[in-house]
């Protein structure tokens, strides 16, 4: 498994994101994505960091991040059973000739159309990275105007959490 999913619970204070990204940059770690938001615990935010194990010493990333004073807990949840999801918004070029084909593809992926205009559609898709990648590649031929992806967020399956 080359992609590692690290979950960091960090104190919700100014500058924490800067500390984490500064460390990742300075140590030359390659990260694929980083997503931040509130956690279930007051005062703690949850960062989900995806690291490519083929190009980066994941163990070093983990240990160095744990040294950041405001990182309360860091867990590599790669090995366990996890639910991993990413949200993508894709603005596709769409004409009356192509619109129905696009909608068919979107349906197959259980994605949603969330905005329509005369020459475009905005597709909202949720899933793992592979699903988003394949949807993107199918929509590509219609012309992609804009793409926004959140990066992975993940939870372990079952009753246990990262703490």
């Amino acid at each position, binding site marked *: 498994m080359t992609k590692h999913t690290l979950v960091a619970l*960090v*104190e919700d204070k*100014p*500058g924490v994101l*800067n*500390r984490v990204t*500064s*460390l990742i940059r*300075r140590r030359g770690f390659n990260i694929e994505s980083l997503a931040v938001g509130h956690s279930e615990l007051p005062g703690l935010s949850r960062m989900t960091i995806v690291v490519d194990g083929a190009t980066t010493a994941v*163990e*070093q990333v983990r*240990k*160095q991040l*744990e*040294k*950041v*004073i*405001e*990182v*309360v*807990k860091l867990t590599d949840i790669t090995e366990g059973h996890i639910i991993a999801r990413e949200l993508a918004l894709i603005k596709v070029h769409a004409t009356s000739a192509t619109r129905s084909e696009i909608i068919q593809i979107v349906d197959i992926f259980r994605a949603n159309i969330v905005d329509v205009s005369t020459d475009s559609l905005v597709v909202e898709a949720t899933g793992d990275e592979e699903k988003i990648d394949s949807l993107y590649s199918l929509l590509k031929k219609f012309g992609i105007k804009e793409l926004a992806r959140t990066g992975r967020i993940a939870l372990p399956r079952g009753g246990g959490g990262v703490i």
Partner: protein
Amino acid sequence: MKLNGAQILCESLVKEGVEVIFGFPGGTLLPLYDVLAQYPQLRHILVRHEQGAAHAADGYARATGKVGVCLATSGPGACNLVTGIANAHLDSSPIVAITGQVARPFIGKDAFQEIDITGITVPITKHNYLVLRADDIATTVKEAFHIARSGRPGPVLLDIPRDVFIEEATFHYPEKVELRGYKPTVHGHVAQIKKAAKLINESNRPVILAGRGVIISGAYEELKELAEKAQIPVITTLLGISCFPEDHILSLGMLGMHGMACANLAVDATDLIIAIGMRFDDRATGRVSGFAPHAQVIHIDVDPAEIGKNVRVTVPIVGEVKNVLRVLNKQLDAQTHVDWMQQVEEWHREHPLVVSHESEKLLPQYVVSKICEVTKGDATIVTGVGQNQMWAAQHFCYQKPNSLISSGGLGTMGFELPAAIGAKVGRPEETVWAIAGDGGFQMTIQELGTAVQDKIAVKIAILNNGYLGMVRQWQALFYRRRYVATPLSGPDFVKVAEAYGLPGMRVTENSQVVPAIRKAMKHQGPFLIDFVIEPEENVYPMVAPGSTLAEILEDPRKKVEIKVKPRETSNL
């Protein structure tokens, strides 16, 4: 009772047992300096440049084991601390740096002398704070000192806006620190220690590589017990020097780029490295792919991120050195390692450190060995960076615990004088010698003024070769003697000393060395000696960059007088 932020800061520093602050005032610090006079127990030493304040706090911290404190104003003052903070960070030295910041309404507006010093120092501090309320000062100071001194020590910066110094709040100093994300592991894992003991008991050719972690942890006795009980040679890193007496029969001295040949050969041949409070720096390991090819590695360190970072480790043990060694030592068998010790002794005999060879000029090695002789090793040596540092490391016999203070990780030229000032303030009864090069000394030469004004009796030995010597040596060895930008015309250091108000002497011949050192020691205040040495003397032995420790180059010249560091005679 309500106090203002400046008073709360001073009260908090007093609570932390701070005795001295190395600082330089400025606009944002005016409210703080105004109340500092009310706290005579906080001695303020005015430096001449903020870099000097950070190095002095660092030197003080290393000499005392306490947290050193430095203070600088916003903007340029804070920026000038940066080198000193980075230096403390790389060498795990506990300092608290306090900087003034522009008043809160001006933050983010590029105000006069505003700089984002917390942003700048993120990668070079253990932690830092922008304190936005007077009410937060006491808790923040408590946390800062706790973080600086515990676990793997390091620098912590507090940035305090000018108006926070003026704001009033109730002073209450917290008893305890509550940091959810900071709990250093102090005790080693029992099962791991057991595994380590088994490896040591089964090893035929073990070596100990001891670093500054031993000194930080004060584990001198525990290290000695380990070495003596299992008869294991002790090799130190540069910053590990003086964690084990160098006149001990088991001492092999320093390893690495300019380490003792016998130490490097032993590391190359060993079957088990017991690495204690060290971090396998590239200057210590040589080419890492060829480092200790036959060895399994036990690595004991309080910082888990150091374990497995540079070399593959067989048994990792995270914990404070002293605690780990206490448990480990109980599980060790008494050993003799007769064959191995004989081999090590043979290397030691065959590869002594050359103290002297034929030369018309004064030699730096001779100067350092005479400082050792006159002080009888009872001194704190503070070095600059470069050749002077290596000669000071090689030719002084360190017998007293924690008697060498040097800039290892960052390699900061100019560290010597301000760090020696800090060390002398921390150890007023002790002789403190700064060993400098003529290049590095000029980087912080203005701190002579600090030593004179505050009557800090540091003794300064400049090994003056008229070159940026270490760079020149590399140009000589690897760039066909093309000496680009390394010859340097210095000032008349004796006159500079006199201009600052301290006595100075110039020494050009062997016969003058000992009398000059004695004169410096006899003098009550600071004293400077300008030793004019052989300009093109090189540091040997040397492991060239990209080479392994076994490929060590020794001094190619004819040896006249061979003198190894005094060492108990082997009874093998």
